[in-house]
Protein backbone atom coordinates (compact mmCIF):
# COMPACT_ATOMS: atom_id res chain seq x y z
CA UNK A 1 0.00 0.00 0.00
CA UNK A 2 2.45 2.66 1.22
CA UNK A 3 5.17 1.37 -1.12
CA UNK A 4 3.00 2.24 -4.11
CA UNK A 5 2.71 5.85 -3.07
CA UNK A 6 4.69 8.16 -5.34
CA UNK A 7 4.17 11.02 -2.87
CA UNK A 8 5.82 9.25 0.03
CA UNK A 9 9.03 8.92 -2.01
CA UNK A 10 8.74 12.28 -3.78
CA UNK A 11 9.18 14.35 -0.66
CA UNK A 12 12.60 12.78 -0.09
CA UNK A 13 14.03 13.25 -3.60
CA UNK A 14 16.95 15.45 -2.45
CA UNK A 15 18.07 12.62 -0.14
CA UNK A 16 17.17 9.70 -2.40
CA UNK A 17 18.38 11.15 -5.69
CA UNK A 18 21.57 12.94 -4.73
CA UNK A 19 22.45 12.16 -1.07
CA UNK A 20 21.70 15.53 0.41
CA UNK A 21 22.27 15.33 4.17
CA UNK A 22 22.65 18.01 6.82
CA UNK A 23 25.32 19.27 9.19
CA UNK A 24 24.99 20.71 12.65
CA UNK A 25 25.85 24.42 12.67
CA UNK A 26 27.32 24.13 16.17
CA UNK A 27 29.37 20.93 16.36
CA UNK A 28 29.72 20.07 12.66
CA UNK A 29 28.44 16.47 12.81
CA UNK A 30 27.16 15.38 9.39
CA UNK A 31 23.86 13.47 9.27
CA UNK A 32 22.38 11.32 6.55
CA UNK A 33 19.43 10.93 6.43
CA UNK A 34 18.83 14.46 7.71
CA UNK A 35 18.23 14.94 11.43
CA UNK A 36 16.04 17.44 13.25
CA UNK A 37 18.01 17.52 16.52
CA UNK A 38 21.77 17.08 16.88
CA UNK A 39 23.44 14.92 19.53
CA UNK A 40 24.75 18.20 20.93
CA UNK A 41 21.08 19.36 21.32
CA UNK A 42 21.46 21.99 18.60
CA UNK A 43 18.54 22.45 16.20
CA UNK A 44 20.30 24.61 13.60
CA UNK A 45 21.46 22.70 10.52
CA UNK A 46 22.78 23.47 7.06
CA UNK A 47 22.21 21.24 4.09
CA UNK A 48 25.28 19.15 3.23
CA UNK A 49 26.13 17.34 -0.01
CA UNK A 50 27.65 13.89 0.52
CA UNK A 51 30.16 12.54 -1.98
CA UNK A 52 28.59 9.09 -2.22
CA UNK A 53 31.93 7.42 -1.64
CA UNK A 54 32.32 4.99 1.24
CA UNK A 55 33.07 1.46 2.33
CA UNK A 56 31.02 -1.64 3.03
CA UNK A 57 30.60 -2.41 6.75
CA UNK A 58 28.35 -5.42 6.19
CA UNK A 59 26.10 -6.79 3.46
CA UNK A 60 23.60 -9.46 2.49
CA UNK A 61 21.94 -10.78 -0.63
CA UNK A 62 18.16 -10.84 -0.42
CA UNK A 63 16.82 -14.02 -2.01
CA UNK A 64 13.36 -13.91 -0.47
CA UNK A 65 12.09 -10.38 -0.98
CA UNK A 66 9.03 -8.30 -0.17
CA UNK A 67 6.53 -8.68 -3.00
CA UNK A 68 7.17 -5.25 -4.53
CA UNK A 69 10.81 -6.21 -5.18
CA UNK A 70 10.21 -9.63 -6.74
CA UNK A 71 11.29 -8.56 -10.25
CA UNK A 72 14.64 -7.34 -8.91
CA UNK A 73 15.37 -10.40 -6.73
CA UNK A 74 18.04 -11.41 -5.86
CA UNK A 75 19.81 -8.17 -4.94
CA UNK A 76 22.53 -7.14 -2.50
CA UNK A 77 22.03 -4.66 0.32
CA UNK A 78 24.69 -3.34 2.64
CA UNK A 79 25.45 -0.80 5.31
CA UNK A 80 27.85 1.74 3.88
CA UNK A 81 30.04 4.02 5.95
CA UNK A 82 30.17 7.20 3.88
CA UNK A 83 33.45 9.10 3.63
CA UNK A 84 31.95 12.05 5.56
CA UNK A 85 30.95 9.83 8.50
CA UNK A 86 27.29 8.82 8.32
CA UNK A 87 26.34 5.17 7.88
CA UNK A 88 23.54 4.36 5.49
CA UNK A 89 21.62 1.37 4.18
CA UNK A 90 22.01 0.96 0.43
CA UNK A 91 21.64 -1.56 -2.33
CA UNK A 92 24.93 -2.66 -3.85
CA UNK A 93 24.35 -3.19 -7.54
CA UNK A 94 26.22 -4.79 -10.46
CA UNK A 95 27.59 -7.50 -8.15
CA UNK A 96 26.60 -10.81 -6.64
CA UNK A 97 27.20 -11.57 -2.97
CA UNK A 98 30.32 -13.64 -3.77
CA UNK A 99 31.96 -10.57 -5.31
CA UNK A 100 31.64 -8.46 -2.14
CA UNK A 101 33.82 -8.20 0.97
CA UNK A 102 33.59 -6.23 4.21
CA UNK A 103 35.75 -3.15 3.69
CA UNK A 104 35.26 -2.86 -0.09
CA UNK A 105 35.26 0.70 -1.43
CA UNK A 106 32.04 1.78 -3.11
CA UNK A 107 30.67 4.81 -4.92
CA UNK A 108 27.13 5.97 -5.60
CA UNK A 109 25.23 5.24 -8.79
CA UNK A 110 21.73 6.28 -9.77
CA UNK A 111 19.42 3.35 -10.43
CA UNK A 112 15.84 2.16 -10.63
CA UNK A 113 14.44 0.59 -7.44
CA UNK A 114 11.12 -0.78 -8.59
CA UNK A 115 8.23 -0.14 -10.90
CA UNK A 116 4.80 -0.40 -9.33
CA UNK A 117 3.01 -2.92 -11.55
CA UNK A 118 2.51 -2.02 -15.21
CA UNK A 119 0.83 1.31 -14.61
CA UNK A 120 2.31 2.68 -11.39
CA UNK A 121 5.19 5.04 -10.74
CA UNK A 122 8.86 4.03 -11.12
CA UNK A 123 10.97 4.58 -8.01
CA UNK A 124 14.58 5.68 -8.52
CA UNK A 125 17.38 6.49 -6.14
CA UNK A 126 21.00 6.17 -5.15
CA UNK A 127 22.57 2.74 -4.94
CA UNK A 128 26.21 1.80 -4.49
CA UNK A 129 28.69 -0.02 -6.65
CA UNK A 130 32.18 -1.34 -6.01
CA UNK A 131 34.96 0.93 -7.24
CA UNK A 132 36.88 -1.13 -9.80
Amino acid sequence: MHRQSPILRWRKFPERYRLEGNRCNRCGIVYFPKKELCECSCKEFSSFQLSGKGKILTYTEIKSSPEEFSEMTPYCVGIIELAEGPKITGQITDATVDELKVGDDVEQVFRKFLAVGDSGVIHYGVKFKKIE
Partner: protein
Amino acid sequence: MEKVGIIGIGATKFGELWKQSLRDLLAESQLKAIEDAKISEKDIDLIFTGNMCSGDFSGQNHLGSMASEILNLNVPSIRVEAACASGSVALRQGMQAIRGGEADIVLVNGVEKMTDVQTRQATTGLMGAGDEEWEGFNGLTFCGLYAMMARAYMHKYRLTREQLALVSVKNHKHATYNPIAHYHNEITVDQVLNSSIIADPLTLLDCSPITDGSASVVLAREDIARKFESPIWILGSGQANDTLSLHARKSLTEIPASTHAAQRALMQAKLGIDKVNVTEVHDCFSIAEVMAIEDLGLIPRGEAGRIMEEGQTYFDGKVPVNSCGGLKACGHPIGATGIKQVWEIVKQLRNEAGKRQIGKANIGLTHNVGGTGSTVVVNVFGRDRENKGY
Protein backbone atom coordinates in the same frame (compact mmCIF):
# COMPACT_ATOMS: atom_id res chain seq x y z
CA MET B 1 9.08 -0.75 45.24
CA GLU B 2 5.87 -2.77 45.34
CA LYS B 3 6.16 -6.24 43.80
CA VAL B 4 3.74 -7.52 41.22
CA GLY B 5 2.82 -11.21 41.11
CA ILE B 6 1.81 -13.43 38.22
CA ILE B 7 -1.16 -15.51 39.33
CA GLY B 8 -2.25 -17.08 36.04
CA ILE B 9 -0.92 -18.02 32.61
CA GLY B 10 -2.45 -19.35 29.40
CA ALA B 11 -1.28 -20.01 25.86
CA THR B 12 -2.76 -21.46 22.71
CA LYS B 13 -0.98 -24.04 20.61
CA PHE B 14 1.57 -22.24 18.40
CA GLY B 15 1.61 -23.06 14.70
CA GLU B 16 -0.25 -22.62 11.43
CA LEU B 17 -3.71 -22.56 12.95
CA TRP B 18 -5.84 -22.35 9.81
CA LYS B 19 -9.10 -22.85 11.64
CA GLN B 20 -8.57 -20.15 14.27
CA SER B 21 -9.03 -16.43 13.77
CA LEU B 22 -7.30 -13.58 15.57
CA ARG B 23 -10.28 -13.38 17.89
CA ASP B 24 -10.39 -17.16 18.49
CA LEU B 25 -6.73 -17.13 19.53
CA LEU B 26 -7.14 -14.15 21.84
CA ALA B 27 -10.23 -15.66 23.45
CA GLU B 28 -8.52 -19.01 24.07
CA SER B 29 -5.45 -17.65 25.83
CA GLN B 30 -7.42 -15.11 27.87
CA LEU B 31 -9.81 -17.75 29.17
CA LYS B 32 -6.98 -20.18 29.91
CA ALA B 33 -5.10 -17.58 31.94
CA ILE B 34 -8.21 -16.61 33.91
CA GLU B 35 -8.92 -20.27 34.58
CA ASP B 36 -5.33 -20.90 35.62
CA ALA B 37 -5.53 -17.97 38.07
CA LYS B 38 -8.78 -19.33 39.48
CA ILE B 39 -10.40 -15.89 39.33
CA SER B 40 -13.54 -14.58 37.67
CA GLU B 41 -13.15 -12.40 34.58
CA LYS B 42 -15.10 -9.81 36.57
CA ASP B 43 -12.10 -9.42 38.91
CA ILE B 44 -10.04 -7.86 36.07
CA ASP B 45 -9.56 -4.08 36.28
CA LEU B 46 -7.53 -3.43 33.17
CA ILE B 47 -6.41 -5.22 29.98
CA PHE B 48 -3.31 -4.70 27.85
CA THR B 49 -2.85 -6.55 24.53
CA GLY B 50 0.46 -6.65 22.69
CA ASN B 51 0.15 -6.98 18.91
CA MET B 52 2.04 -5.70 15.90
CA CYS B 53 0.31 -6.36 12.61
CA SER B 54 -3.39 -7.18 13.05
CA GLY B 55 -4.28 -4.28 10.77
CA ASP B 56 -2.02 -5.55 7.97
CA PHE B 57 -2.71 -9.26 8.42
CA SER B 58 -6.37 -9.39 9.46
CA GLY B 59 -7.68 -5.94 8.60
CA GLN B 60 -8.53 -5.58 12.29
CA ASN B 61 -7.23 -2.87 14.58
CA HIS B 62 -8.74 -1.69 17.87
CA LEU B 63 -7.77 -4.89 19.69
CA GLY B 64 -8.37 -3.30 23.09
CA SER B 65 -12.07 -3.41 22.50
CA MET B 66 -11.89 -6.92 21.04
CA ALA B 67 -10.15 -8.22 24.18
CA SER B 68 -12.68 -6.68 26.59
CA GLU B 69 -15.67 -7.68 24.47
CA ILE B 70 -14.58 -11.32 24.63
CA LEU B 71 -14.78 -11.12 28.43
CA ASN B 72 -18.02 -9.05 28.50
CA LEU B 73 -16.15 -6.30 30.34
CA ASN B 74 -16.23 -2.52 30.14
CA VAL B 75 -12.88 -1.96 31.85
CA PRO B 76 -10.13 0.06 30.11
CA SER B 77 -8.52 -2.15 27.50
CA ILE B 78 -5.50 -0.98 25.50
CA ARG B 79 -3.47 -2.29 22.60
CA VAL B 80 0.31 -1.92 22.84
CA GLU B 81 2.63 -1.99 19.81
CA ALA B 82 6.42 -2.22 19.91
CA ALA B 83 7.08 -4.58 16.98
CA CYS B 84 8.34 -7.97 18.22
CA ALA B 85 8.62 -6.57 21.75
CA SER B 86 4.91 -5.70 21.89
CA GLY B 87 4.14 -8.48 24.40
CA SER B 88 6.84 -7.50 26.89
CA VAL B 89 6.05 -3.81 26.62
CA ALA B 90 2.40 -4.68 27.34
CA LEU B 91 3.52 -6.61 30.42
CA ARG B 92 5.41 -3.57 31.65
CA GLN B 93 2.33 -1.41 31.16
CA GLY B 94 0.32 -3.85 33.26
CA MET B 95 2.92 -3.90 35.98
CA GLN B 96 3.14 -0.11 36.05
CA ALA B 97 -0.65 0.25 36.20
CA ILE B 98 -0.69 -1.88 39.35
CA ARG B 99 2.25 -0.02 40.90
CA GLY B 100 0.59 3.29 40.07
CA GLY B 101 -2.58 2.29 41.88
CA GLU B 102 -4.73 2.20 38.77
CA ALA B 103 -5.59 -1.49 39.06
CA ASP B 104 -5.42 -4.49 41.39
CA ILE B 105 -5.63 -7.23 38.78
CA VAL B 106 -4.50 -6.81 35.17
CA LEU B 107 -4.80 -9.18 32.23
CA VAL B 108 -1.92 -8.93 29.74
CA ASN B 109 -2.18 -10.58 26.31
CA GLY B 110 0.09 -11.02 23.36
CA VAL B 111 -1.41 -12.18 20.08
CA GLU B 112 -0.56 -12.43 16.37
CA LYS B 113 -2.50 -14.06 13.53
CA MET B 114 -0.02 -14.28 10.65
CA THR B 115 -1.06 -17.03 8.26
CA ASP B 116 -4.05 -15.34 6.62
CA VAL B 117 -1.65 -13.54 4.23
CA GLN B 118 1.07 -14.78 1.87
CA THR B 119 4.66 -14.97 3.12
CA ARG B 120 5.72 -12.07 0.86
CA GLN B 121 2.96 -9.88 2.27
CA ALA B 122 3.94 -10.87 5.80
CA THR B 123 7.55 -9.97 4.96
CA THR B 124 6.47 -6.48 3.90
CA GLY B 125 4.27 -6.05 7.00
CA LEU B 126 7.05 -7.10 9.37
CA MET B 127 9.41 -4.54 7.81
CA GLY B 128 7.29 -1.99 9.65
CA ALA B 129 9.52 -2.86 12.62
CA GLY B 130 12.49 -1.32 10.81
CA ASP B 131 13.02 2.06 9.22
CA GLU B 132 10.65 2.03 6.26
CA GLU B 133 12.01 5.26 4.85
CA TRP B 134 15.52 3.82 4.25
CA GLU B 135 15.65 0.13 5.09
CA GLY B 136 12.28 -0.70 3.58
CA PHE B 137 12.88 1.44 0.50
CA ASN B 138 16.10 -0.46 -0.14
CA GLY B 139 14.24 -3.76 -0.26
CA LEU B 140 15.49 -5.04 3.07
CA THR B 141 13.67 -7.74 4.94
CA PHE B 142 14.06 -8.57 8.61
CA CYS B 143 16.06 -11.60 7.67
CA GLY B 144 18.24 -9.27 5.59
CA LEU B 145 18.85 -6.96 8.54
CA TYR B 146 19.84 -9.84 10.83
CA ALA B 147 21.90 -11.36 7.99
CA MET B 148 23.92 -8.15 7.93
CA MET B 149 24.45 -8.42 11.69
CA ALA B 150 25.43 -12.07 11.24
CA ARG B 151 27.98 -11.16 8.55
CA ALA B 152 29.46 -8.42 10.75
CA TYR B 153 29.56 -10.73 13.81
CA MET B 154 31.06 -13.66 11.91
CA HIS B 155 33.66 -11.30 10.41
CA LYS B 156 34.61 -9.84 13.80
CA TYR B 157 34.55 -12.92 16.01
CA ARG B 158 35.30 -15.65 13.43
CA LEU B 159 32.06 -17.46 14.23
CA THR B 160 31.63 -20.25 11.68
CA ARG B 161 28.48 -20.98 9.71
CA GLU B 162 28.36 -24.41 11.39
CA GLN B 163 28.55 -22.87 14.89
CA LEU B 164 25.74 -20.47 14.05
CA ALA B 165 23.55 -23.38 12.97
CA LEU B 166 23.79 -24.86 16.48
CA VAL B 167 21.22 -22.32 17.72
CA SER B 168 18.48 -23.78 15.54
CA VAL B 169 19.56 -27.37 16.18
CA LYS B 170 19.33 -26.85 19.95
CA ASN B 171 16.03 -24.97 19.84
CA HIS B 172 14.39 -27.63 17.67
CA LYS B 173 15.54 -30.26 20.18
CA HIS B 174 13.97 -28.26 23.05
CA ALA B 175 10.72 -27.82 21.15
CA THR B 176 10.23 -31.57 20.93
CA TYR B 177 9.53 -31.46 24.69
CA ASN B 178 7.09 -28.52 24.47
CA PRO B 179 3.51 -29.53 23.62
CA ILE B 180 2.51 -26.04 22.36
CA ALA B 181 5.56 -25.63 20.08
CA HIS B 182 5.13 -24.99 16.34
CA TYR B 183 7.68 -27.71 15.46
CA HIS B 184 8.35 -31.07 17.03
CA ASN B 185 11.10 -32.26 14.70
CA GLU B 186 14.81 -32.35 15.38
CA ILE B 187 17.15 -30.90 12.77
CA THR B 188 20.88 -31.20 12.02
CA VAL B 189 23.60 -28.68 11.25
CA ASP B 190 23.68 -29.98 7.66
CA GLN B 191 19.98 -29.38 7.27
CA VAL B 192 20.38 -25.78 8.44
CA LEU B 193 23.28 -25.20 6.05
CA ASN B 194 21.54 -26.82 3.11
CA SER B 195 18.13 -25.22 3.48
CA SER B 196 17.44 -22.43 1.00
CA ILE B 197 19.19 -19.09 1.49
CA ILE B 198 16.74 -16.38 2.53
CA ALA B 199 19.24 -13.54 3.01
CA ASP B 200 22.87 -14.52 2.70
CA PRO B 201 24.37 -15.94 4.95
CA LEU B 202 21.11 -16.89 6.71
CA THR B 203 19.07 -19.86 5.51
CA LEU B 204 15.46 -20.83 6.04
CA LEU B 205 16.34 -22.83 9.17
CA ASP B 206 18.07 -19.80 10.73
CA CYS B 207 14.73 -18.00 10.70
CA SER B 208 11.86 -18.16 13.13
CA PRO B 209 8.71 -19.21 11.28
CA ILE B 210 5.47 -17.42 10.53
CA THR B 211 3.29 -18.62 13.37
CA ASP B 212 -0.17 -18.00 14.80
CA GLY B 213 -0.54 -17.90 18.55
CA SER B 214 -1.68 -16.08 21.64
CA ALA B 215 -0.54 -16.01 25.26
CA SER B 216 -1.96 -14.32 28.35
CA VAL B 217 -0.91 -13.70 31.94
CA VAL B 218 -2.80 -12.37 34.96
CA LEU B 219 -0.93 -9.88 37.15
CA ALA B 220 -1.94 -8.95 40.69
CA ARG B 221 -0.92 -6.42 43.32
CA GLU B 222 1.49 -7.80 45.92
CA ASP B 223 -0.99 -8.19 48.80
CA ILE B 224 -3.55 -9.85 46.53
CA ALA B 225 -1.06 -12.13 44.83
CA ARG B 226 0.18 -13.41 48.18
CA LYS B 227 -3.26 -14.94 48.77
CA PHE B 228 -2.83 -17.13 45.66
CA GLU B 229 -1.11 -20.48 45.48
CA SER B 230 2.54 -20.14 44.31
CA PRO B 231 2.52 -16.81 42.50
CA ILE B 232 5.62 -15.96 40.48
CA TRP B 233 7.08 -12.50 41.18
CA ILE B 234 8.34 -9.87 38.79
CA LEU B 235 11.56 -8.92 40.57
CA GLY B 236 12.84 -6.44 38.03
CA SER B 237 11.96 -4.98 34.69
CA GLY B 238 14.03 -2.89 32.30
CA GLN B 239 13.39 -1.39 28.90
CA ALA B 240 15.85 0.38 26.65
CA ASN B 241 15.39 1.84 23.19
CA ASP B 242 17.81 2.58 20.40
CA THR B 243 17.75 3.82 16.80
CA LEU B 244 14.93 2.62 14.55
CA SER B 245 17.40 1.88 11.76
CA LEU B 246 20.27 -0.56 12.03
CA HIS B 247 22.64 1.65 10.05
CA ALA B 248 22.52 4.39 12.68
CA ARG B 249 23.41 1.94 15.48
CA LYS B 250 26.79 2.28 17.24
CA SER B 251 27.53 -1.44 16.83
CA LEU B 252 26.48 -4.09 14.32
CA THR B 253 27.78 -7.03 16.34
CA GLU B 254 25.80 -6.48 19.52
CA ILE B 255 22.50 -4.98 20.62
CA PRO B 256 23.40 -2.30 23.16
CA ALA B 257 19.76 -1.90 24.28
CA SER B 258 19.80 -5.52 25.48
CA THR B 259 22.69 -4.77 27.80
CA HIS B 260 21.06 -1.60 29.11
CA ALA B 261 17.66 -3.23 29.66
CA ALA B 262 19.28 -6.17 31.47
CA GLN B 263 21.29 -3.88 33.73
CA ARG B 264 18.13 -1.99 34.72
CA ALA B 265 16.15 -5.17 35.37
CA LEU B 266 18.88 -6.85 37.37
CA MET B 267 19.57 -3.74 39.40
CA GLN B 268 15.90 -3.52 40.29
CA ALA B 269 15.95 -7.21 41.22
CA LYS B 270 19.19 -6.70 43.16
CA LEU B 271 20.64 -9.74 41.42
CA GLY B 272 23.66 -10.55 39.31
CA ILE B 273 23.18 -12.32 35.98
CA ASP B 274 24.99 -15.35 37.48
CA LYS B 275 21.98 -15.92 39.76
CA VAL B 276 19.61 -16.48 36.83
CA ASN B 277 18.77 -20.18 36.41
CA VAL B 278 16.75 -20.12 33.22
CA THR B 279 16.58 -17.66 30.33
CA GLU B 280 14.27 -17.07 27.41
CA VAL B 281 15.98 -14.90 24.79
CA HIS B 282 14.78 -13.39 21.53
CA ASP B 283 16.06 -15.71 18.77
CA CYS B 284 14.05 -14.37 15.81
CA PHE B 285 17.10 -15.41 13.75
CA SER B 286 19.93 -17.66 14.91
CA ILE B 287 22.39 -14.77 15.17
CA ALA B 288 20.00 -12.99 17.55
CA GLU B 289 20.45 -15.71 20.20
CA VAL B 290 24.23 -15.53 19.79
CA MET B 291 24.23 -11.78 20.41
CA ALA B 292 21.61 -12.01 23.18
CA ILE B 293 23.53 -14.37 25.45
CA GLU B 294 26.57 -12.12 25.15
CA ASP B 295 24.64 -8.84 25.51
CA LEU B 296 22.95 -10.15 28.69
CA GLY B 297 26.34 -11.08 30.10
CA LEU B 298 25.48 -14.79 30.35
CA ILE B 299 28.76 -15.58 28.56
CA PRO B 300 31.84 -13.53 27.64
CA ARG B 301 31.75 -11.49 24.41
CA GLY B 302 32.76 -13.39 21.30
CA GLU B 303 32.64 -16.85 22.89
CA ALA B 304 29.18 -17.97 21.83
CA GLY B 305 30.55 -20.30 19.16
CA ARG B 306 32.69 -22.30 21.55
CA ILE B 307 30.07 -22.35 24.31
CA MET B 308 27.39 -23.63 21.95
CA GLU B 309 29.74 -26.32 20.65
CA GLU B 310 30.17 -27.48 24.24
CA GLY B 311 26.38 -27.81 24.50
CA GLN B 312 26.18 -25.38 27.42
CA THR B 313 23.01 -23.67 26.18
CA TYR B 314 20.89 -26.85 26.21
CA PHE B 315 18.20 -27.03 28.92
CA ASP B 316 20.39 -29.40 30.90
CA GLY B 317 23.60 -27.39 30.31
CA LYS B 318 25.30 -24.71 32.40
CA VAL B 319 23.56 -21.78 30.66
CA PRO B 320 20.10 -23.05 29.69
CA VAL B 321 18.61 -20.84 26.97
CA ASN B 322 15.19 -21.08 25.35
CA SER B 323 13.95 -24.29 26.95
CA CYS B 324 10.57 -23.86 25.19
CA GLY B 325 12.24 -24.07 21.78
CA GLY B 326 12.65 -20.31 21.41
CA LEU B 327 11.18 -18.26 18.64
CA LYS B 328 12.83 -20.59 16.14
CA ALA B 329 11.02 -23.80 17.06
CA CYS B 330 8.21 -22.85 19.44
CA GLY B 331 7.24 -20.27 16.82
CA HIS B 332 7.16 -16.47 16.67
CA PRO B 333 3.68 -14.97 16.60
CA ILE B 334 5.11 -11.45 16.87
CA GLY B 335 2.93 -9.84 19.55
CA ALA B 336 2.56 -13.10 21.50
CA THR B 337 6.26 -13.87 21.84
CA GLY B 338 7.01 -11.65 24.85
CA ILE B 339 4.11 -13.14 26.83
CA LYS B 340 4.93 -16.68 25.77
CA GLN B 341 8.45 -16.15 27.16
CA VAL B 342 6.86 -15.23 30.50
CA TRP B 343 4.59 -18.29 30.19
CA GLU B 344 7.67 -20.53 29.82
CA ILE B 345 9.57 -18.94 32.73
CA VAL B 346 6.50 -19.33 34.96
CA LYS B 347 6.25 -22.99 33.92
CA GLN B 348 9.93 -23.50 34.82
CA LEU B 349 9.71 -21.65 38.16
CA ARG B 350 6.56 -23.55 39.05
CA ASN B 351 8.40 -26.75 38.17
CA GLU B 352 5.73 -27.57 35.57
CA ALA B 353 7.92 -27.74 32.45
CA GLY B 354 7.80 -31.51 32.17
CA LYS B 355 10.55 -33.14 30.13
CA ARG B 356 12.28 -29.79 29.47
CA GLN B 357 12.31 -28.80 33.20
CA ILE B 358 15.78 -27.49 33.92
CA GLY B 359 15.74 -28.75 37.51
CA LYS B 360 14.92 -26.53 40.43
CA ALA B 361 14.72 -23.00 39.09
CA ASN B 362 14.44 -19.98 41.38
CA ILE B 363 15.22 -17.10 39.06
CA GLY B 364 14.22 -16.72 35.43
CA LEU B 365 14.81 -13.99 32.85
CA THR B 366 13.09 -12.99 29.62
CA HIS B 367 14.68 -10.93 26.84
CA ASN B 368 12.41 -9.60 24.11
CA VAL B 369 13.64 -7.51 21.17
CA GLY B 370 11.65 -5.22 18.89
CA GLY B 371 13.09 -4.59 15.43
CA THR B 372 16.85 -4.93 15.11
CA GLY B 373 17.34 -3.92 18.75
CA SER B 374 15.33 -0.71 18.65
CA THR B 375 13.25 -1.74 21.70
CA VAL B 376 14.46 -4.28 24.23
CA VAL B 377 12.67 -5.43 27.38
CA VAL B 378 14.32 -7.63 30.00
CA ASN B 379 12.28 -8.95 32.91
CA VAL B 380 13.52 -10.92 35.90
CA PHE B 381 11.18 -13.32 37.71
CA GLY B 382 11.48 -15.21 40.99
CA ARG B 383 9.74 -17.92 42.98
CA ASP B 384 10.13 -15.74 46.05
CA ARG B 385 9.28 -12.10 46.53
CA GLU B 386 12.62 -11.23 48.07
CA ASN B 387 16.14 -11.93 46.94
CA LYS B 388 17.25 -14.69 49.25
CA GLY B 389 20.79 -14.64 47.94
CA TYR B 390 20.52 -17.90 46.06
